[in-house]
Structure formats: structure tokens, C-alpha cells
């Protein structure tokens, strides 16, 4: 069965070396056709009634992956040589083709031709690697034909002309993708095809027949060899291009070689690079470093993209980038210190598919033919994409997904192809779907393998759990939970009893999710991938299947549940005397809402045990909170809004600020304390592999916008430490009650978000959590909805020697990638939540034009941004109409943060209150947006 064929390989990192690797050829690799008489058919994947078997070439997999993902294409044999070539060229396509191959619904079979006795071929002398691989594909196709005899037709699909010619010569049926898809007679499939570049020229001509107009728009990308040598010599700089979310004509490249960010202005300097691409940048001469362009709200060039109304940002990550001003921007034109540059080459593309809609356009006269359309992505950082479609009338008012294929120098926009339709524009379900897709959130139902990991329902605490020595029986305690109204996934509960010595025993009980989610199971993998539950306005996308979140793990009232408890002994002054952790069994006596808990505490007539405990806890919490604030924890504010949703139509009925009560703060305080105690415990046991959460100290540059705003209204903020900032925020009291909150909101916005990390990756001083002024912090209290907490539960259990540490924790790289994924998912979940609120705000105002009060938060040269406290939204107000930019009627006083009319009659200054009118307008059909105007 073993055949030994050594072959020779050369080259290795600069040096030429002869490498000898063994290559075993086998006779136990089967063809995958269930009707085959010669092979073992137990692992066969192709359909038993297949009339044609497709063998795909590498270029087909690389470029037509969207087509292959369509269920209409089936009975495909993917050769291992093809997979290998794809893997070397494009990892993301490789992952996609692998996913198709492992999907049991699809009839894709991987044939390891390189290891098969009859299909392995040796490189002939003078043959290039590519030619050899093409030959290998042909040999494999031929083998299939011979092996299966006349039972089926074996068709080689290739877009390589040479390969097709040779195949036909050798007597193999070969076709191009286009002709094969045409033969299937499904027009929708044709849209999925990527045009070969030779047709690009034609397309260009169709659009503009005058040859004079076909000019070269972009500079040529430098060849890779030149880029490498340029990077070596330090004339080029490598980095990831990040496009400004709020101005797609401005991008940043963080470069390690310069140690600063390079700004790139305009599409021509960006030179066809997309957001997320790894690019090589050349610095422009210093006299071309441009002055602040971000001062204008609207954009340059011919595209009239506009800033829509958005939710007020909650942190620096969400907010538009503002470049710190250097010195006074008076008449003296000081040289800007930010280097700007242009892209000379793209090292790695970050192309994937994008969600959006087609630019509205009239239907072409002869409908049914091929139409060219421009696709506008919902993500403003992405340029318009040119696509061809045969179903234009169907797509015009739809949200669609489009993938990018190429971008050549002559076309202003990249070209791509249609992938699939999501639904009608403006439809709530479609738009929610778009929000999910854009944020890469998996909302598919859980697979059967995942559901198989769940314990059988109805579940109840078993006698084994009760007799388990590691599990303490705390059913006798008066435990209760306090959550938002209607909360079904209750993952925390509390108790508080007074001890004979005058101290209190306070316990935080967290749902014992890790008792049901075991490492390495499909359930665990799925949860680890999802990372967090996502809360949209009208629905929730769970991290764990519903039976776990709402029943088995949820600490509902009057049922016995398993928990992981943190129990402190505290003095009446809220000093922690001792801490202990234990797995436990609890029986919650009440599931209260914040409102109920607050009402109980406020009602002085009530003297029942729960109420007394609540009051005790509240007084402890107040002391803990005070102490935390004295340490320098920031009380930040965000403009969270809450919708009242119609239960039947799911339309928003009312919208208002989220109210924070004492009860919320009380629960929050104990959760913080539990997280801190757990963080200390796990770090003590596992100094190198604990999952913690840190909040980086904001740099002075980040706080610059806040300081400028504060200075303009005559307020001095001390930002030297979190304590100083907290104090000066406390003293920032203006003439109106909302002033302090507004300043806090602006401060929150300047900071980045806290992130998860593995303790082995950073040094202990970096573990610091700035916002909470805590040296250590982690997430322990919500394992039902956050995967980070699941990991922390496992760490804590292992540190208490209740269970073994799963092997993942021994692999530092894997741990880092888990925490990166958690950060990514966490951030996406937040973005999705915000996008969903934005969407519902739009729906809410559709039939309700409203006048309201707003505050100016940012001054621009042609208008200003206002923040509407009541609805938590922020948007631009234009003083000059678009198109008459720079008419000189208004000028900006940078020092005082004011925009004034030239004659001095009207001026608007920062934080000023203005009356505005909010209305949903539809400048183009199906493209409604919220518009703000001054009254």
C-alpha cells in the first residue's frame, strides 16, 4: 500500500537548498462516487444520480467562489492540488471552499490526487510549476473519466484557455465557467460570475464610447519586488489602511517605521486601496502635506455622500477621528506636522463582500439584457462598486450583497459581481439582516450537533449535583435577582445576611454555565465563535441555545439552579474581610426588576426580609461606590435610549432616555466587586494565562477635543490622572442641569473601549483599568451572554482545583487569538446594537416630524453637529447649502469654538442650545434618511 517516491525541492529563505521529502502514493484513495463499483463508497459524497461530475480548475475556485457557494452547483470534485494552490494564493477563499466541502448538504468531494498512485505526476524537465499543476488536474480528470467509465460525463471547468485546449486535445470534456453556467439556463447564476478581465475593456467601452474619455485615473501599483526593496530602504512604509468612517476620502496608515500615522487624502492618493488592506505608502513632499480638510462636514470630489444622522458615539472608537490642531490656526500657515502620503502598492487585499444597494438609475430600454449598475455599500468607507446584472428591475429596490473582483487603472470604481439579495430596502427585517451581516454576526439557528450537547429537558438539579462535595448547598439562603424588566436570561443573583458579629455576608451568585458547556464540544466552539449575545432593539441573538439561556442556566425565581458563587464577609463600612468562591446550588426567592427593587427600598412600610436585605446591600453599595470614586473611578455618561416596541407590529412606539436608578447602581457595584475579586484570584493562580479586561489610559491627544470644547466654555479640566479628571468633571457645573451630563458624554467619547487580553501578553502595569480605576479587572458575571465569562469561570474553577484547566490555556497564541476574537465580536455586537437603534429611530420618525431641543457639539466650516439629548442622536446641520461651499458667509472662530456670520449678526457656539426640526426625507426613492434643520 505504501509507495515511496522521494522528490526534490529547492529554495529556502534566500539560500538554495536541496530538500528531500518523502511522498507516499496510495491505492486506498477513493473516487467519492456512490455508484462506483471499484471503490469503497462509505465516504462517498457525490450524488448517486449524478449525470455530470465537475472537476474545477484552480482559477475557477479562486475567482468564482460565490458561484460555487450557490447550491445550484453540485457534484463537484475538488482536487487536493487545487486546494493547495488556492491555499497559497488566498486563505479566505481556501476557508470558504473548505467550508463547502465539509458541508453535508453540498455534494463536493475532495480527491487527494497528489497522493493517488495513478494521478500523481512528476514534474517534467523544463515544465513550470503551474504547467505541472495544470497537467495534474487534467490527468485527474482523465482518471475520473476512465475510472467511472460511461456512467457519467466528467467535465473539466477551467477559465485557462491553454489548459482547456490541451484538455480537449487529450479527449477530456472541458468548458469555461461562462459556457457551463449558460448551459444550466439560470439567469440569476450568471450574475454571480466574475467577468474575466478581458471583458473589462468592453464594459468600459459600453459605458463611454469616446476613446478620449478613457483615461488612466490611478497610478500603477509598483511591482512587489520594488515594494520590498523600497520598504527595506525606508522610502516606502507598510501598514494597514484604515478609512475614516465619517469621511471616506481620508484614510490613515499606521506605520511602525515612522511611528506615526500617515494620512492619505483623496481617492487618487489611496490608489484603489480598500479599508483593511495592507499597503505600501510613500510620503509626499512636505509642502504637499495638506491642511485640515476634516473641518468640512461634506466631502470633496464629485460624489455627494453626506453625513447622515447617527447615534451619539459612546467612545473614541465610534467617534469620527479628529486630528489634533497644532498651534493656532490663524492666518499664519504653519507646516502641518502630520505626514501625508500616497499608496504605491497593495501588499494584501482585504476584499470581501459588502452589503448595500444599487445606485438608483433608470431602467435601460431593452430590459432583460445585461445592465451595468453602480452599487453603493452601506459601509461608507467602501467606494461604489460597478456590477453587471441581468435582473436590474428586481434589484433596484433591494438590499444586496456584492463582492469585489478587480479594480483597474482606467476605472474610477472597482468592479464586482452580485452575490445575493437580502430583501426590500427599508423593510425592517431586511435592514436588521443588513445590520447583522455588516457586523459579521452569525444569526443562524444552532446546528443539530450544538443542540445535541444540551442536557435533556425538562432539566432539574439532580441528586448527584446535590451530593457533589464541591457544590455547596445554599438553597436555604434568601437569594434574589435584580434585572431589567422582562429579562429572561438572568445570570446573576445576590444575597445578603447579617452575621452575629455585626458584619454582613454578601454573595454574588452567577449561573454555572460551564457545568453545561464543556470545552471542546461543538456547543463550546459555537459559543466561542459567537463570543457574545447581540441585543438588537427587537430581537436578541443568543450566544448559547435558548434552553440554556432562558431555562437551565437562568437563575429564575423559585427553582433550584446551579451557580458559581463569590461570597464576601463585609464590615458595615463595606470593607471586605474575607472572600471565598464556591460552586453552589441556590433557589432564588424573587426575580425583581430594577423598578420593583427600587420601589421596595423606597417604600418604608415594607419590612420583609428581601426588602431589608436590599436596603442593607444598598447602603453597602453606596459606600463601595463612594470609595471607588475617591480612588478615581470615572462616572461616565452615555446617551442610551430605550424604545417601547409595539408587541404586534414590532414598530417603535416611543423612545426615550434609559433611566438609571439606585437599584441599577447597587447591582452594578456588586458585580464590579465580584469581577475584581475573581480577577485577583485567577491571576494569582495563573499569572500567564488569565483572561483579563483592561482599559487603556487615554492619551492627551485623544482628550484634546474635550479640552478644546471645555476651554471654549471657560472650563478647566485636569486630565493628568483619572482621579483629577473625575474631580474636575464633578466640578463642571454649568448654568443648566444638563451641562454636567453633556460634558461627561463628551469625555466618554474621547476614550477608547476596554479590551480583553491574556495576562501573558502584557506586563502587570498595563493590566490597569482606567475607567474603573482598578489595577485588575475581568468579566465573570454574565456567562450566559459573554464567552469571556465562560473562560473566566473555567479559570476560576481550575484555580480552586474543582476542575482541570482545559488544554487551550497552555497555548498562548490560541489564547491571544481567542481574546482578539472576543474583542472583535464584542465591538461588532455593540455596533450592531447601535445600528439597530439608528434603524428604529428612523422608523420612529418616519411619520412623526418633531421639533426638539439640541446642543451644538462640534463646529465645522459649513455648519455644525448637534446632539439631541432626548433621542440620543447626533447629526449635522448645514448653514450653507451643499454646492456653495466656501461662499465665505460664515467663518469659524477656532479659539472660542464658534461659527459666525460674516456680518456678525448670528453666531453659534459650542454647547449652545438650539431648536431643531427633525424629519425623515427621501431625497431619492427608497433612500430615506433623517434630516435635521434649524428652526
Amino acid at each position, binding site marked *: 500500500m505504501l509507495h515511496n517516491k522521494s522528490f526534490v525541492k529547492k529554495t529556502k529563505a534566500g539560500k538554495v537548498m536541496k530538500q528531500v521529502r*518523502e511522498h507516499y502514493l496510495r491505492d486506498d484513495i477513493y473516487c467519492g462516487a456512490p455508484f462506483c463499483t471499484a471503490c469503497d463508497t462509505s465516504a462517498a459524497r457525490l450524488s448517486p444520480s449524478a449525470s455530470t461530475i465537475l472537476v474545477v480548475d484552480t482559477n475557477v475556485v479562486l475567482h468564482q467562489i460565490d458561484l460555487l457557494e450557490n447550491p445550484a452547483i453540485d457534484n463537484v470534485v475538488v482536487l*487536493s492540488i487545487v486546494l493547495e494552490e488556492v491555499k497559497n494564493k488566498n486563505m479566505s477563499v481556501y476557508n470558504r471552499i473548505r467550508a463547502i466541502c465539509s458541508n453535508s448538504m453540498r455534494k463536493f468531494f475532495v480527491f487527494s490526487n497528489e497522493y493517488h498512485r495513478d494521478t500523481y505526476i512528476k514534474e517534467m524537465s523544463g515544465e513550470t510549476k503551474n504547467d505541472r499543476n495544470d497537467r495534474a488536474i487534467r490527468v485527474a480528470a482523465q482518471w475520473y473519466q476512465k475510472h467511472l467509465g460511461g456512467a457519467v460525463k466528467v467535465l473539466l471547468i477551467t477559465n485557462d484557455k491553454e489548459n482547456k485546449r490541451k484538455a480537449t486535445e487529450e479527449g477530456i470534456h472541458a468548458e469555461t465557467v461562462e459556457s457551463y453556467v449558460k448551459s444550466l439556463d439560470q439567469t440569476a447564476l450568471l450574475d454571480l460570475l466574475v467577468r474575466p478581465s478581458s471583458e473589462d475593456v468592453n464594459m468600459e467601452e459600453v459605458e463611454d464610447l469616446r476613446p478620449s474619455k478613457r483615461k488612466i485615473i490611478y497610478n500603477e501599483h509598483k511591482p512587489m519586488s520594488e515594494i520590498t526593496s523600497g520598504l527595506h530602504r525606508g522610502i516606502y512604509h507598510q501598514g494597514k489602511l484604515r478609512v475614516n468612517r465619517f469621511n471616506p476620502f481620508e484614510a490613515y496608515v499606521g506605520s511602525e517605521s515612522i511611528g506615526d500615522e500617515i494620512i492619505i487624502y483623496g481617492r487618487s492618493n489611496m490608489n484603489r486601496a480598500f479599508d483593511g488592506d495592507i499597503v505600501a505608502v510613500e510620503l509626499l513632499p512636505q509642502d504637499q502635506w495638506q491642511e485640515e480638510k476634516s473641518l468640512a462636514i461634506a466631502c470633496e470630489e464629485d460624489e455627494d455622500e453626506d453625513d447622515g444622522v447617527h447615534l451619539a458615539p459612546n467612545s473614541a472608537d465610534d467617534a469620527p477621528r479628529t486630528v489634533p490642531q497644532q498651534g493656532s490656526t490663524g492666518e499664519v500657515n504653519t507646516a502641518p506636522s502630520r505626514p501625508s502620503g500616497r499608496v504605491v502598492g497593495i501588499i494584501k487585499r482585504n476584499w470581501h463582500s459588502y452589503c448595500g444597494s444599487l445606485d438608483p438609475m433608470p431602467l435601460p430600454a431593452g430590459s432583460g439584457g445585461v445592465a451595468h449598475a453602480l452599487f453603493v455599500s452601506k459601509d461608507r468607507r467602501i467606494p461604489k462598486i460597478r456590477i453587471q446584472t441581468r435582473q436590474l428591475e428586481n434589484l433596484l429596490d433591494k438590499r444586496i450583497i456584492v463582492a469585489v473582483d478587480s479594480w483597474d487603472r482606467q476605472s474610477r470604481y472597482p468592479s464586482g459581481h452580485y452575490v445575493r439579495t437580502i430583501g426590500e430596502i427599508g423593510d425592517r427585517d431586511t435592514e436588521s439582516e443588513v445590520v447583522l451581516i455588516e457586523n459579521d454576526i452569525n444569526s443562524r439557528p444552532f446546528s443539530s450537533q450544538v443542540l445535541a450537547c444540551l442536557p435533556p429537558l425538562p432539566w432539574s438539579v439532580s441528586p448527584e449535583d446535590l451530593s457533589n462535595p464541591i457544590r455547596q448547598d445554599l438553597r436555604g439562603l434568601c437569594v434574589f435577582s435584580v434585572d431589567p424588566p422582562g429579562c429572561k436570561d438572568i445570570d446573576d443573583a445576590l444575597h445578603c445576611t447579617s452575621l452575629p458579629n455585626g458584619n454582613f455576608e454578601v454573595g454574588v451568585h452567577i449561573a454555572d454555565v460551564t457545568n453545561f458547556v464543556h470545552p471542546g464540544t461543538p456547543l463550546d466552539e459555537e459559543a466561542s465563535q459567537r463570543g457574545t449575545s447581540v441585543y438588537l432593539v427587537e430581537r436578541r441573538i443568543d450566544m448559547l441555545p435558548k434552553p440554556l439561556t432562558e431555562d437551565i442556566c437562568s437563575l429564575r425565581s423559585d427553582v433550584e439552579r446551579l451557580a458559581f458563587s463569590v461570597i464576601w464577609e463585609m464590615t458595615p463600612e463595606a470593607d471586605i474581610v474575607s472572600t471565598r468562591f464556591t460552586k453552589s446550588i441556590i433557589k432564588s426567592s424573587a426575580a425583581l426588576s430594577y423598578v420593583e427593587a427600587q420601589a421596595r427600598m423606597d417604600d418604608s412600610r415594607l419590612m420583609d426580609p428581601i426588602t431589608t436585605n436590599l436596603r442593607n446591600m444598598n447602603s453597602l453599595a453606596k459606600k463601595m461606590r463612594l470609595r471607588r470614586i475617591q480612588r478615581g473611578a470615572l462616572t461616565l455618561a452615555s446617551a442610551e435610549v430605550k424604545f417601547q416596541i409595539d408587541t404586534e407590529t414590532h414598530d417603535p412606539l416611543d423612545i426615550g432616555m434609559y433611566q438609571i436608578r439606585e437599584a441599577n447602581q447597587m447591582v452594578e457595584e456588586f458585580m464590579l466587586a465580584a469581577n475584581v475579586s475573581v480577577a485577583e484570584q485567577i491571576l494569582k493562580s495563573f499569572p500567564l494565562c488569565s483572561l483579563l479586561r483592561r482599559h487603556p489610559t487615554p492619551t492627551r491627544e485623544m482628550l484634546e477635543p474635550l479640552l478644546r470644547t471645555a476651554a471654549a466654555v471657560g472650563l478647566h479640566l485636569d486630565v493628568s490622572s483619572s482621579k483629577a479628571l473625575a474631580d474636575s468633571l464633578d466640578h463642571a457645573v454649568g448654568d443648566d442641569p444638563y451641562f454636567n451630563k453633556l460634558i461627561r458624554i463628551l469625555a466618554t467619547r474621547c476614550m477608547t473601549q476596554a479590551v480583553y487580553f491574556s495576562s501573558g501578553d502584557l506586563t502587570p502595569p498595563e493590566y490597569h483599568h482606567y475607567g474603573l480605576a482598578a489595577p485588575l479587572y475581568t468579566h465573570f458575571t454574565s456567562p450566559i451572554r459573554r464567552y469571556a465569562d465562560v473562560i473566566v469561570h473555567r479559570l476560576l474553577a481550575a484555580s480552586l482545583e474543582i476542575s482541570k484547566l482545559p488544554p487551550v490555556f497552555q497555548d498562548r497564541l490560541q489564547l491571544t487569538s481567542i481574546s482578539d476574537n472576543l474583542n472583535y465580536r464584542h465591538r461588532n455586537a455593540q455596533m450592531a446594537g447601535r445600528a439597530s437603534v439608528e434603524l428604529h429611530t428612523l422608523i420612529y420618525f418616519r411619520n412623526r416630524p418633531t421639533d426638539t431641543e439640541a446642543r451644538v457639539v462640534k463646529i465645522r466650516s459649513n455648519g455644525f453637529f448637534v446632539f439631541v439629548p432626548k433621542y440620543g442622536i447626533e447629526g449635522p446641520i448645514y448653514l450653507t447649502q451643499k454646492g456653495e461651499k466656501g461662499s465665505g458667509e460664515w467663518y469659524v472662530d477656532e479659539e472660542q469654538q464658534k461659527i459666525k456670520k460674516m456680518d456678525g449678526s448670528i453666531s453659534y457656539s459650542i454647547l449652545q442650545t438650539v431648536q431643531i426640526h427633525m424629519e425623515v426625507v427621501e431625497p431619492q426613492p427608497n433612500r430615506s434618511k433623517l434630516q435635521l434643520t434649524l428652526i
Partner: protein
Amino acid sequence: MEFVSPEGLRLDGRRPMEMRQIRAEIGAVSRADGSAIFEMGNTKVVAAVYGPREVQNRSQQMSDQALIRCEYSMANFSTGDRKRKPKGDRRSTEISLVIRQTMEACIMTNLMPRSQIDIYVQVLQADGGTRSACINAATLALADAGIPMRDLVTSCSAGYLNSTPLLDLNYVEDSAGGPDVTVGILPKLDKVTLLQMDSKLPIDILENVVQLATEGCKAVANYIREILLENTKQLEYRRGV
């Protein structure tokens, strides 16, 4: 990196439980009292045994048992880059010691007091698993020299990559940095004489990997026994029996 494809094939086309092709030849060095060449895939090792003979260094002589000495070296041409390796570096000292201890466990040293046995092993070509190949070659050479042994010692390695236990790692798999367990057994007595591991493994997986390596050792033992029988038949034939 993907060391095992979803189709269940390793980089060189083997399945996870398969060994490389093994080949052995007895009597490669005619001056020696016993010698053998042992190949596991592209790993090729030559072993030569001298003795039992008079102890060279009188102070080392033992009155109740034989002195076993072992020297391991790698030929300069055994790897791709021809670097001159200083003799007696840490790695070869360690492997020399490992081989000596393993062989000592099966040689009936008490039958040959006041004598010494020298085992020289040299790697002619290295492609992972040299340690195992050296032990297997040494066993054959000892048997060829007619030195009394309790049992044959055979060795094989196994690793754990991509959550799959893999038998007999080659160089590429070995340099992945994953766990690499080398096991040496006395197949007839069913005893383990050598157990080494690089990197770390959870205990329950270790058991599986050790089990796999033991299976490999047994397969090597069967092959070695066949080779020895074949060799004996040849000898008989030459004698004209």
C-alpha cells in the same frame, strides 16, 4: 499549519497511524563484531558494535558486569546544510546517554564481567525520529554481534498535531514544535525502557499517544525479528547446514 488534511492524510501522504517505510540491513561494517543499517523513511542510521572486549580504561572496569559505552554522532552530510558540528555537543551527549541506558537495560551485562562493549551509532541521513532509528539499529547490531540480551529493544516516536495523534513524525512534523513522545519497549517482556517527551500534553491524551508509539514499537519489533531470522537462515546456508 495543517499537518493532517480533513481527508485524513499527512503532508507526505501517510495516514495518522501509519509509519514510514522501514528497511534494515545486517552486517554493514565488516571490521566490527556486529553492525546494522536501519532506515525509517529518509532517516538512515548505521550502528557498529565492538566487544565484549578488554576494558580500555582499567579504572572503569567492573568486576560483576560489563561496561557499556555508546557514542552517537551525526555525519556532516546528514542534514541539508553542511555545518561542521563539534563532537560532543549537548544534544549528542544526551542521545548517547539515552541509547546507552536503553541498551544497558536489555544486555545481560552480568554474563560478561570485566569487559566492555562499545556501540557506535552514526546518522547518515536525518529526517526526524533519529533517536528511535538509532536504538533500532543498535539492537540489530548487538544481535549481530551475538551479545546476550534479555529481549530486543525497539523504539518509535509519536506526536500530537492538529488534535490528532500521529505515529512516527518526520522532520517537518517534528519541527512543528508540538509534543514528540519517544517510546522504547522490550516487546516480548512487554516492558517500557524509554519514555521521553518534548513540549507538553494533557495526561489523558498522553496515554493515547504513548499507546500509539508502543504499537509502532511492536511493528518495528516484528520487522526486526524477521530480518534477524532471515540473516540466521543466510548464515546457516553459508555454513552449508
